[in-house]
Each structure stands twice: as structure tokens, then as C-alpha cells.
């Protein structure tokens, strides 16, 4: 191809416009933070990113977003892209704890602070800060609360758990927390159903339907995430098992996350207990970590959100710290 004078002129003009526009992009003086999520599949993540956007805005920061769709390799590329854009901090929710290590190294090399949200990386020589809910502990507490209720009511229980994606650490930790407790109480609790949901609503729906078909007397149900509540409600309604606490045929029901649906079902009396991750706190911790890092401090590698269990008993007292309540309130207004 022959490069004509005209082509050259056009090229030069384009380059000039390009370089002037690029100034516009970087115009705002504040910090730029990258938010790298692996998905927005549940309300927890959707609310999480919204809270982050808001808080960042109030601090005068700019946010850039990237969703990896559970693809570790793509996320690594996204981290590199953010490094190319010279952001001031990277907040990441990786899918795999080990596969994120090269990304941390890359961020270290570029001297960009990296904070893991809700999922800590595996141990390595690379430095980053992780904020995490204590999944196993919170699930243990939730199930313990339910077991206590069960003991109070007496009788034997047939239990079923909706497990998350088997490739996700959080799902594994929550499952383990569940079994930690039920295995100590084998005398009254018999686990008859383990539904593999793959974090997928219709898998959960079909799986739970089948589990209840196989064991119609299931009366102790735990989900690894609150975003599956609508399917659970639908299945239990079909099986005529959706009853409030205290009514005959109530299924002991425990949730995890603490989203707006969980709040509503707690309030209505269908949900007995919910392990809440303190979302707002976690975001504050994450952003605080960025500020510490920028200030030259070196926070601990793992910062734990202890979370808490909320139940119908202490709903009014604790609900203001439950992020789902905030969302729920907003929805009521809107």
C-alpha cells in the first residue's frame, strides 16, 4: 500500500486529536480506582459495586470497572489493562485464590496497591491486602443458631443445603461451615440433600425440587447465598411447605449474605436466621486500606469482617447494620 501525502495528513490530524482527547480522560485530579469483579450474579455483588461507586464518588475518586465472568485469565488481562491505565489502586474479586497471584505480582511491580474484596488470595510472596467475611465462622454461627432453635422445638430434622459453585472458595467455606455444625449434631439432624447449584438459579430450582421430591419431609434448609431465595420460595410453595415460623409445617430456613430479600423474608417470618456479611463495613475497610497504602502504611494482609448472624429475635436491633435493609428501605421508597 502506498502511503500518500493525504493519508499521512489524515493520520497526523487523527494523532493530534487523539492526544488532546486523552487529556480530557485524565482531567479530574482525584484518585482513580479500578473495580474488578468476577461477576455481578447476586445482589451482594450488585450492591457491593453500587456502594463502592457511591463511596468513591463521595471521596472524589474516579472508578473504572471490569467484569471477568469467572475467567481468571481474562481477569489477569484486565489487571494488566488497569496497570496500563496507571490507576491508583486495584480492587479485585478474583475467582481463584491461586490464579490471582501473577496479577498481584504485576500490580506490585507497577507499584499499584491491590485490595481483594471478599476473597483472599492464596499465600505467596506477593503483597496485597484482603478484606474477607469469615465465611466458615459466619456459616457455623448461623447453623448453630438454627440447631439451637431445632433443639428447642424438639424432634428430628432432615436437612438440605444448597451449595454454591464447586470452583468457588467462598462456596466451599460456607459448605464446610455448614457441615462443621451438622456433623456435631448427627443425633437430630440428618443431611439428606446436597444440591449443587453452580451459582445458577434454575439449577438451584430444579435441584431443590428434586431433593424435596426425594425427601418430602425436609424441614431444615440452608442456602449458601441469599440470591437463591426466590427459587426456594417458589419450590417450597409448590410443595406446600412455605410457612411462617410458628405455623405448622414451617421449614427451618437459614440464609447467607444478608441481602434485601433476606431482610424481607426475615421480617415476614419465613427465614429463621441469616449470616450477614457486613458489606458497608467491608467497603470501608477496603477503601481504608487503599488510603493507608497510599500513605505509605502497610496494613495486614488479611482483614476480617467478622460478620454476624441476624435472626427474627434480634432483627430490629441489628437491622441497621444489615446492608440488605438499606437496599430494602430504598426500594420501599422508590
Amino acid at each position, binding site marked *: 500500500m502506498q502511503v500518500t501525502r493525504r493519508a499521512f495528513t489524515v493520520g497526523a490530524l487523527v494523532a493530534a486529536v487523539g492526544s488532546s482527547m486523552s487529556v480530557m480522560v485524565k482531567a479530574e485530579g482525584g484518585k482513580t480506582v479500578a473495580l474488578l469483579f468476577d*461477576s*455481578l*450474579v*447476586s*445482589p451482594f455483588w*450488585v450492591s457491593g*459495586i453500587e456502594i463502592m461507586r457511591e463511596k468513591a464518588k463521595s471521596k472524589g475518586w474516579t472508578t473504572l470497572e471490569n467484569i471477568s465472568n469467572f475467567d481468571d485469565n481474562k481477569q489477569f488481562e484486565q489487571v494488566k489493562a488497569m496497570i496500563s491505565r496507571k490507576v491508583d489502586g486495584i480492587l479485585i474479586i478474583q475467582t481463584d485464590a491461586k490464579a490471582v497471584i501473577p496479577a498481584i505480582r504485576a500490580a506490585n511491580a507497577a507499584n499499584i496497591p491491590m485490595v481483594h474484596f471478599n476473597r483472599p488470595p492464596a499465600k505467596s510472596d506477593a503483597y496485597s491486602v484482603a478484606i474477607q467475611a469469615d465465611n466458615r465462622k459466619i456459616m457455623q454461627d448461623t447453623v448453630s443458631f438454627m440447631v439451637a432453635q431445632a433443639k428447642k422445638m424438639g424432634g428430628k430434622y432432615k436437612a438440605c443445603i444448597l*451449595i454454591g459453585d*464447586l470452583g468457588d472458595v467462598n462456596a466451599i467455606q460456607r459448605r464446610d461451615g455448614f457441615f462443621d455444625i451438622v456433623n456435631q449434631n448427627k443425633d437430630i439432624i440428618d443431611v*439428606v*440433600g*446436597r*444440591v*449443587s447449584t453452580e451459582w*445458577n*438459579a*434454575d439449577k*438451584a*430450582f*430444579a*435441584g431443590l*425440587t*428434586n*431433593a424435596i*421430591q*426425594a425427601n418430602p419431609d425436609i424441614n431444615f434448609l440452608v442456602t449458601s447465598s441469599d*440470591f437463591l431465595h*426466590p*427459587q426456594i*420460595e*417458589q419450590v417450597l*410453595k*409448590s410443595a406446600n411447605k412455605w410457612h411462617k415460623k410458628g405455623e405448622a409445617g414451617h421449614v427451618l430456613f437459614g440464609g447467607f449474605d444478608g441481602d434485601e430479600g433476606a431482610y424481607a423474608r426475615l421480617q415476614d417470618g419465613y427465614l429463621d436466621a441469616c449470616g450477614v456479611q457486613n458489606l458497608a463495613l467491608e467497603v470501608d475497610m477496603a477503601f481504608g486500606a487503599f488510603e493507608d497504602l497510599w500513605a505509605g502504611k502497610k496494613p495486614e494482609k488479611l482483614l476480617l469482617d467478622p460478620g454476624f448472624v441476624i435472626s427474627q429475635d434480634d432483627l430490629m436491633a441489628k437491622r441497621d447494620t444489615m446492608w440488605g435493609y438499606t437496599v430494602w428501605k430504598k426500594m420501599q421508597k422508590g
Partner: protein
Amino acid sequence: MSARDPGSRGRHTTLFLLRNAPVLLFIVLLAAFGMMSGRFLTVTNFVNIFIQAAHIGIIAIGMTFVLLIGGIDLSIGANMYIVAAVLGLYLKDLPLVVSFPLVTLIGLAFGAVNAWFITRLRVAAFITTLSTLFVGRGIALYFSGNKMVGFSPEVLSLGRASYLGVPSAIWAFAIVFIVAFVTLSQTTFGRQIYAVGADADAAGKAGINVRRIVFSVYCIAGVCAAIGGLVSLSQVAVASSTFGFQKEFPVIAATVLGGTSLFGGRGGVLGTVFGAVLIQTVENGLVMTDADPYLYPLVISVIIFIAVFVDSTRTSILERLERRQIRVERA
């Protein structure tokens, strides 16, 4: 067909068994699960299986039309999500008799967009639907802001409702199936679909309006995706941002498992229903027998594999047995 051997009964039995091999496999499967779980072989459980197979089955029926003309539609998942998002966000307050037809029209329109690119601009179906898969989901995500979309209580109670003792999902499945089956086998349009799938050029020369057929087929796939989406969302009650995501795989799997060729001209919706139900039966059986979740994909894939193996072996044996003979030979 000069030579058929009337004398050999053994060959007839073999032929009969071979023709019905998939059904036999299915029966073996039912017996196996039935022995492992007492609750498997019950009417309620079969009703469950059909309910759970319904949305995949309905969309796969639409996909069957597309595959029959040698096309493909990867965008059905995005179509489902658009339907769900519009229904949940903007049509919540309308009565179902209005809102359902409206969103079905949206499904049709989505299919028509695919069809327009494919028939008018002659873009390959694979790439057209690959890109509308992205664009469609992008638009719907813009509507929903990534949030869970909920539906009116009427939608949800419809999902649980039964008429004449038959759950609504199965009604939808049955109606779509019957309409599709009759369309394919008993109408000019249906037979022309097979003709276009076998040889589009020849179909054009035979006076068939090929473009119209191809266009309609993608619209049908769009409508089926919408109906399947409605069945699915009325059961799972909400649509998250991944509603319908990667649904093209199980849908195409059910269709192909049912014997429809990816290269057009061969297959039918009866097989598709069989394919969808077979997969769901295995999943159901695994839950019923409380199998380790890690084993699900292993078992399902092995059973799909066996089903296809039996089918292809059967086809080649049948071909050999039914081959035209030019001489009459006494046994």
C-alpha cells in the same frame, strides 16, 4: 423396492429393536434409577422432570427449526434475558394476557433482527447470533442495571399453577410441541423447511421462497426463546444478570441429542423433546439417588455419549439392513 425379505422374522425383530433403541435406552435408565431410589418411579416425579425440562425443551423446539435449515442461533439466552427484563421492569402492572403476548412479540422481534441480518445482509448465522448474543444482553443489562429482576405475584403463581391437574409449564411445553410438530409434518411451510435444509439452491429453483422460510425460522426460534424464558422465569421467580446465560449449549445439546442434524434437513421436534427430557431425567435421577454433585457432569456426559453412540450405531446398521437390493435371494 423390489426386494424385501418377508421370510426372516429374526431380521424384523432386530430392525424393530434398532428402530426403538433410544426408547429402550431410556427404559433401561428409568429402571436403573428406579431401583436405586424408591421415589424415582412416581407420577409426581415424572411431572417434575417434565416441568424442569419444559423451558429447555421449548427453546430447543425453536432451535430445531433453525438447525433444520442448516442454521444456528446462539442468541437465545440473550433473548430470554431481554424478555425477562422487560417483563419484570416495565410490564409488571399489566395483566398477564397483555404482558405475555407483548414480550413474546419482543422475542419475535429479536428473532427478526437475527433473520434480517442473515437473509438480507447475508451475514453468517453463527456470527450474527454470536454478536446479537452480546448486544442483546448488553441492552437488557442496561435496562436492569445488573440487578435482580423480580416479577409480579401473578407471574409466580402462574408458574406454580395447574390446569386440569397438569402444571402450567407442561401445558406450555405440550402446546408448543404440538404446534411445532403439526407445523413441521403437516404444513407446506414445514415440509419446505426440510427442503431448504437439504439444499437451499434446489429449493429456490423448485419455487420455494427460501428467504421467507429462513426469515420465519429465526423468528420462530425467537418466539420459542421468549416462551421458554417465560416458563423459566415463572418458576425461578427472578432473573439475575446471568438469566439465560450460556443456555445455547444445553439447548443445542438437547436438539442434537434428539437426532436433528447440525447440517440441516434431518431431524424433528419429537426427538428434541426426547433429548430435553432425557437430560433432565438423568439430572433428576442423580439428585434422587443422592449422588455426589461432583459426579453429575460425569454421569450425564457418559449417558449422552451412550445415547448418541447407540443412535449412530443403529443408524449405520439400519442403513446396511435397509439398503436397496437389486437381487432377490432366498435365505
